[in-house]
């Protein structure tokens, strides 16, 4: 709880500070009442963020860290989060977006779907490769039928049809 509050505070300071910094170069525009142009509203929001960040930090410093036995017991019994999966998902998503232009949406989408299915099963899981390949092909076919044929949204192509 306390660590959350500190991180939240820093998030607020970072974002609020960035907004204040970036809007410093925006022009003042007269005739807009107290508004004074494009910087005014973002600065109001940044000010609010900085205040709430400070409030969050004060709360974190004032409240001692409390260990809830029930929560820590529950946390121990539930499986640990698979952060490797999270990192893998991020990398696959970035990889997909980079590959769309060279190899086209359908090929990139097939690879993303297959790689993600394998990632979720576990990288050491060697079974069911064929079913994952068939599943990925099925998803891409469904996407083609629904979005290209039925709705008419043309998805990016590459050099090949895919």
């Amino acid at each position, binding site marked *: 709880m306390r660590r*959350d509050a500190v*991180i*939240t505070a820093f998030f607020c300071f970072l*974002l609020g500070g960035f*907004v204040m910094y*970036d*809007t410093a170069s*925006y*022009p003042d*525009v007269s005739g*807009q*009442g*107290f*508004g004074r*142009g*494009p910087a005014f*509203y*973002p600065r109001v*929001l*940044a000010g*609010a*963020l900085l205040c*709430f960040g400070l*409030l*969050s930090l004060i709360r974190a410093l004032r409240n001692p860290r409390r260990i809830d036995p029930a929560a820590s017991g529950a946390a121990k019994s539930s*499986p640990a989060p*698979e*952060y490797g*999966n*999270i990192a*893998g*998902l*991020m990398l696959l*998503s*970035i990889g*997909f*977006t980079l590959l*769309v*232009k060279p190899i086209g*949406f359908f090929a990139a*989408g097939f690879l*993303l*779907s*297959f790689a*993600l*299915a394998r990632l*979720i099963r576990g990288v050491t899981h060697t079974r069911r490769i064929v079913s*994952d390949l068939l*599943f*990925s092909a099925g*998803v*891409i076919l469904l996407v083609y039928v*629904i*979005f290209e044929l039925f*709705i*008419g*949204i*043309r*998805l*990016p192509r590459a050099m090949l049809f895919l």
Partner: protein
Amino acid sequence: MGVFELFTAGLSNFANLYSILLIVGGSVIGIIFGAIPGLTATMGMAVFLPVTFTMTDIHGILFLVGIYVGSCYSGSLSAILVNIPGTPSAIATGFDGYAMAKRGEAGKAIGYATTASALGGVFGVLILMFAAPVLADFALAFSAQEYTGVALLGISIISYISFGSTLKGLIGGIFGLVLATVGQDVISAYPRFTFGSADLQAGLQMIPVMVGFFGVTEVFVKMEREVVIRRAASRIAGVLPRPGRLFQLAPLMAVSSVVGAFVGAIPAAGGAIASMAAYGIQKRLSRKSAEFGTGITEGVVAAEAANNAAVGGAFVPMLSLGIPGDPQTAILIGALMINGLAPGPMLFLTRPDLISTIYIGNVFSVVTFTVVGLAGARFFATLIRVPRHYLLPSILIFCIIGAFAIRNTLFDVWVLIVCGAAGYLLLKIGVTPAPVILGFVLGPILEDNFRRALIMSGGDWTTFVTRPISLALLLINLFILIGPALIAHLRKRRA
């Protein structure tokens, strides 16, 4: 225009098979999304929003209304069968529903849940039909100052009821407001936070941001750990409820529907709050109070009547004020804006057929989920166990297409991925996506009206407190944000 005239203005939109298929198809998709744990009504609507781009505004809204109403019902199916609510609005349903299922009464629980949802849904539409035009008439007197107050009210309420602290909800809301400032300033057209990018000149598009925070964030969360779904409890039999028992439960359903509709009408409240409130009230009022939670039909019926009545209630602020009643209506507002329509009181005057279509579409969707729910209970028992290695890649692909289809640019896919990752990281520090998205949707409304109010008053800030409705809204905002903490502090001092 009278209530009856407004209800029938859009009847002709249903005189063709295509419209019927859209509402039925949307309802079935909604039922599937709501039934599968991990998929939500919001995700379903966000993912299928791009499908509506080639439809007319009427057909697009019909389809999305079907998904919305269907998914609000079907969260109860997995709550009853495996004690994992398919949607947050079904949390209270599981208290008694799963207990009934463990006793071999899963079919009975589903039957009563479906019937209560149907009656609650119809009641919600009745509330919508009578309340929305009245509020819309009232809102015609609103100026920039009042709309500023209403937009702030939406953010205050969602912050207050957000899981986690009010402060984190507010921070999420403000983050959403900041995201909405990216692009050209509404008044001076000066580019803000564009970093020289031509893609950012038009600002962040609503769909990639919404789908990112509601859809891709959930994919990240589901990637973290396997949700072990136990085999669906027992056999599914005896689904059809007994008419005599329904008659006995009618007063309970009526009260729960009233609670659900009124809570649903509070901007940003939603079905989860509505169903919990109704369940809590029935538990206090009922003669079987001690048995709530042990597996009684009263518990299931109270929660389900309320969460579907809340759907009709959520449409009230959306249609009459242009303020989302819950995250799902935020997506509907997005759909209306994409079609060049501005939700608010003027919509009742300029497009009564669209308003009527929403009313009638709600009713059609209620009929659809009643039939599908009662007939397809066994099917859903198998559906809810779709493994995540098939579910998550499919959802991600659909999310990506949804983001891409807006402007046919990969930039929006990047926005989707970044928002998904940001939403996941924010969840880790206790900031949920709902306030962020509501802030993003309300941002343009808030800034536009706030600055216009100041321009009209020549920079005089007292303009927000000299107008009675604006002052009242500001005081309500203050009470929502500070009131509970102040009351708790005073109680502590007295103790």
